[in-house]
């Protein structure tokens, strides 16, 4: 083995993307003692938070390291076989519910491949994965934050890492924030932006590697500072969602009973429910806020609600598009409104919140996806690269993180074997395979769906229209019945008369346009 560098690969961040990269490198024949993975959490996982559901069986590929992960990993909570989507307004709730025996559990298949989604708690899951990495011989260092990369031929003491992410002194207002790096000498800036990355710097000490993998997650200070172009998006509220959630303890038996779950046995994990909702709970709150803060008059917060059952807790929260947040509304109060909606309140009754938290989620979409995933000697994976599929209602990031890590692991091993870890070589392998993978194909195929689900209508009048219509259609009062279509148009008429914004938003033309987009779901 060639020992001119301290390690073959240094990975920054021991989340799913970083761990998948490390395991894949092992599979490709890189020795465990040539891989070093850092995480700023102590214990590992303690900085991480998800909604969240893990889709797909990406972890199966690492069976040799993880064994029976679906039974043994403490953060892999329940196998989802019961899915609800719906509309929630302040008074009405309409759910479409699917229970699928074939997805697992309820007396259905025992075929593991049918179990394809899990509720996950990341603090527990990541800690377990870190243990497995150590068992596999990888160097794992917890509680270490890396904020400086080593650039070939550049004295790490010649600049302060903090300068790379500070807003510039001369920063104007608006979207055009500049970074102090622009104020450093031009030659230095060029090296920081384009030099060859060959290791990391920790407290002034350099540790070298052939390739550095940036797997820092959604708040990637390094991609900002070292000019991978995800930094351009990460500083904009146009592309970021904020998740706010509580983990609420209900107890395993109560969850099994309340959500009609399979309790699990020696071979199968317990089953669970996943629910994602379009919320129009904020109309009155918004109007109140506009009165006090007229700057953002007309802006309704575009929020999705999520509710997932874990083993003995539930994850209950909202995800809000930051660009849609009007002045005057605190994000945590938006969560409170969700929690108090009667349909949700009933589900958490008797429960006790045991954790609260917030986490950002990139939502770049295809058209704003970064295109610089590699530099000479470095690649970006997972959330740090913005590899999240989000369509306003459904968000998939963890499977993408695992998948991008695998692709990176394969590519890096091949590039090291060829002796060429330039950006060109890494792009020809890693970036190329990433763009050919389901991650990019999904983004492409569902771009119209994203447009549909991001339409403000879905966060204002659609849930109310659907809710009120269902309310009337479902209610039998023993009088002459009218068709659902008639009820729908009746409700539409009332809503248009009640509210000016509705009158415009609910025109036939707009409704038709929305329906046409909706076909692409």
């Amino acid at each position: 083995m060639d020992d001119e560098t301290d390690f073959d690969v240094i990975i920054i961040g021991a989340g799913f993307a970083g761990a998948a990269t490390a395991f894949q490198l092992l599979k490709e024949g890189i020795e465990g003692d040539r891989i070093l993975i850092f995480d700023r959490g102590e214990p590992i996982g303690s900085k991480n938070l998800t909604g969240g559901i893990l889709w797909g069986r990406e972890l199966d590929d690492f069976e040799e390291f993880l064994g029976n992960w679906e039974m043994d990993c403490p953060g892999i909570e329940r196998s989802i076989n019961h899915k609800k989507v719906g509309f929630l307004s302040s008074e009405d709730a309409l759910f479409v519910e699917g229970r699928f025996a074939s997805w697992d559990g309820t007396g259905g298949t025992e075929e593991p491949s049918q179990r394809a989604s899990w509720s996950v708690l990341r603090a527990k899951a990541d800690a377990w994965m870190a243990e497995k990495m150590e068992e596999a011989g990888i160097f794992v260092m917890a509680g270490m934050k890396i904020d400086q990369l080593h650039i070939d031929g550049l004295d790490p003491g010649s600049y302060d890492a903090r300068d790379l992410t500070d807003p510039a002194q001369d920063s104007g207002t608006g979207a055009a924030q500049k970074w102090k790096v622009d104020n450093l000498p031009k030659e230095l800036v060029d090296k920081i932006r384009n030099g060859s990355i060959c290791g990391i710097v920790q407290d002034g000490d350099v540790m070298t590697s052939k390739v550095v993998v940036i797997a820092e997650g959604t708040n990637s200070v390094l991609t900002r500072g070292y000019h991978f172009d995800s930094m351009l998006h990460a500083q904009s509220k146009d592309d970021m969602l904020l998740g706010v959630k509580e983990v609420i303890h209900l107890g395993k038996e109560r969850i099994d009973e309340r959500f009609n779950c399979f309790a699990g046995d020696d071979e199968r994990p317990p089953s669970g429910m996943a629910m994602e909702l379009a919320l129009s709970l904020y109309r009155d709150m918004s109007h109140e806020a506009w009165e006090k803060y007229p700057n953002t008059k007309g802006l309704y917060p575009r929020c999705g609600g999520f509710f997932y059952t874990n083993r003995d807790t539930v994850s209950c929260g909202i995800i809000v598009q930051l660009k849609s947040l009007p002045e005057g509304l605190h994000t945590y109060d938006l969560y409170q409104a969700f929690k108090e909606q009667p349909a949700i309140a009933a589900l958490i009754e008797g429960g006790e919140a045991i954790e609260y938290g917030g986490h950002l989620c990139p939502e770049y979409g295809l058209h704003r996806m970064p295109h610089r995933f590699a530099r000479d000697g470095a690649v970006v994976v997972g959330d740090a690269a913005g590899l999240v599929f989000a369509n306003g209602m459904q968000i998939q990031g963890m499977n993408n993180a695992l998948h991008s890590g695998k692709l990176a692991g394969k590519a890096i091993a091949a590039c090291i074997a060829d002796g060429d870890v330039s950006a060109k070589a890494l792009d020809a392998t890693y970036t190329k395979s990433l763009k050919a993978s389901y991650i990019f194909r999904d983004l492409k195929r569902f771009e119209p769906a994203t447009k549909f689900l991001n339409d403000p209508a879905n966060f204002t009048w659609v849930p109310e229209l659907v809710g009120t219509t269902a309310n009337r259609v479902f209610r039998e009062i023993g009088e002459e019945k009218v068709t659902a279509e008639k009820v729908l148009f009746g409700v539409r008429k009332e809503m248009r008369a009640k509210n000016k914004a509705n009158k415009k938003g609910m025109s036939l033309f707009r409704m038709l346009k929305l329906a046409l987009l909706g076909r692409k779901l």
Partner: protein
Amino acid sequence: MSEAIKLGLFTYDVKNGLGLIGYNVDEHEHAHIIVETSKCNDCSHMMCVWGCPAQCYNFRDQGLEEMKFQYEDCVECGTCYIMCDQGAVSWNHPRGGFGITYSQG
């Protein structure tokens, strides 16, 4: 229910929520977020205040004349850094081992 919304009664008890999270707070000289609060006086929107899920930013919404920021309760989400367009927020992760410690995640 709809009455409550009209009266603005949805108030999440943030301090209680934050009390459920473990922290290992670093010393002031190592604060991971530095806010140049003098720049906040001219800000017309206070989006950091509305966005922050941990109520680390307190300003006119709480009847204060000046921005009061404290990093101790920060959940390290990064919202403030994205919301601020005044160049007032300098954001980094806390030093290794410091800051928030989720036990569920």
